[in-house]
């Protein structure tokens, strides 16, 4: 690891000042659970590291009935997993966190760091996109908001500029008659996912007809992708396992996997089809239960 200047930010304002002064020679470090491996391998060798991990103002979980949820960018995965309010009102996020990496990584790694690393196989991104999240970014020009679905530009690349900070993620409360599910596939527990899928399913009053759907896949392109062909095929349709199976066959219209050391592109597409189907079906079941009032959300 090359020597670097280390600056611990005292506040968001201080971090922005330092970033403005240092320009592109500076790299932000949050939990560093991916960044440290990148530094050790010499893939990045910044002159200056700006440590934002300790910024308590960005470490929070807020739930406001009606408006939804806000999670500070520097909230650790462990805090999200342990959050009672998220467990009771947004269980899908806790279930994603439960299987994200290992406890050591969850204890120190942050949700904002995970998103800004923009690993295409990120556990967190697909479920947060399915939940309809917004990324809140602050920079020298002030604050801006970007839908999380438009946050990722490519492999390890986001809309956050060198002088900017991701400050929080927000998403609306899960609407009535809606289910949200998440599943990932990997060879060994604790390994990075091969494919990730998250599905959001809203039903009409009849408890069968789909009114809104989002299917978000990770690990099948340079960024997380919405499986829009699958979503469109199901809108206004009375959901059945057969309808879901048939629509899930359309995942490859939205994916562009590349073969790598883990598996072939075809394999990723096949797994993506299966996971899209499974997550749609389990979100459908949860939505049906919500219509029937069986599940308190």
């Amino acid at each position, binding site marked *: 690891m090359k020597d670097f200047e280390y600056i611990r930010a005292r506040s968001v304002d201080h971090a922005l000042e330092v970033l403005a002064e240092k320009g592109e020679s500076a790299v932000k470090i949050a939990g560093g*659970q991916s960044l440290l491996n990148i530094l050790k391998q010499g893939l990045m060798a910044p002159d200056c590291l700006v440590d934002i991990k300790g910024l308590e103002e960005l470490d929070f979980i807020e739930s406001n009935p009606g408006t939804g949820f806000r999670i500070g960018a520097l909230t650790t995965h462990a805090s999200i997993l342990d959050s009672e309010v998220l467990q009771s009102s947004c269980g899908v996020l806790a279930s994603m966190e439960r299987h994200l990496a290992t406890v050591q*990584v969850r204890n*120190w790694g942050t949700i904002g760091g995970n998103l800004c690393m923009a690993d295409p196989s990120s556990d967190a991104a697909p479920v947060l996109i399915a939940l309809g999240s917004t990324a809140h970014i602050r920079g020298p020009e002030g604050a801006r908001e970007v839908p999380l679905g438009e946050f990722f530009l490519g492999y390890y690349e986001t809309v956050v500029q060198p002088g900017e900070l991701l400050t929080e993620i927000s998403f609306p409360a899960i609407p009535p008659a809606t289910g949200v599910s998440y599943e990932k596939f990997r060879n060994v527990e604790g390994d990075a996912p091969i494919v990730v899928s998250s599905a959001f399913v809203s039903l009409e009053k009849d408890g069968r007809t789909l009114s809104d759907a989002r299917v978000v896949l990770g690990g099948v392109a340079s960024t997380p992708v919405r499986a829009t062909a699958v979503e469109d095929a199901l809108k206004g349709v009375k959901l059945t396992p057969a309808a879901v199976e048939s629509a899930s066959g359309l995942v490859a219209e939205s994916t562009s996997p590349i073969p790598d050391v883990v598996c072939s592109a075809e394999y990723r597409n096949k797994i993506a089809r299966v996971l899209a189907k499974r997550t749609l079906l389990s979100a459908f079941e949860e939505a049906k239960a919500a219509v029937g009032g069986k599940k308190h959300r």
Partner: protein
Amino acid sequence: MTLLDFLREYLGMTGTNAGCRTGDCGACTVLLDGKSVNSCLVLACECDGKAVLTIEGLSAGGRLHPLQEAFMDEGAVQCGFCTPGMIMRGVEFLRGNPDPSPAEARVAIEGNICRCTGYENIVKAVLAAARKMKGGGVA
């Protein structure tokens, strides 16, 4: 410099083992402000002002920690390479869950790989330490 290298190379405290150095194996687990972390994935300078507890700091008054004793009693040490990390993770786990089920103890060490595959006795040791620490008298 990582916390792991700082401990081993700068302070000469080699109780914390260096395994994969990529955050996958858990051999270098230490407690940072009471939370288990892979010390290979934390910079030493990040720890300024924080409490770092390593395997060297577990014994008190010349007595081993109950989990260290349980590892010996249950034969949970084979080659010993994963042991410091396993024990530090186990200490954190038992602080939060003093009465774990076998399944919970297995999940607790999800981030610690034992290359001897001695997990059965490691889980037994965690459960035995829990009983001992509760004062149940079963060592």
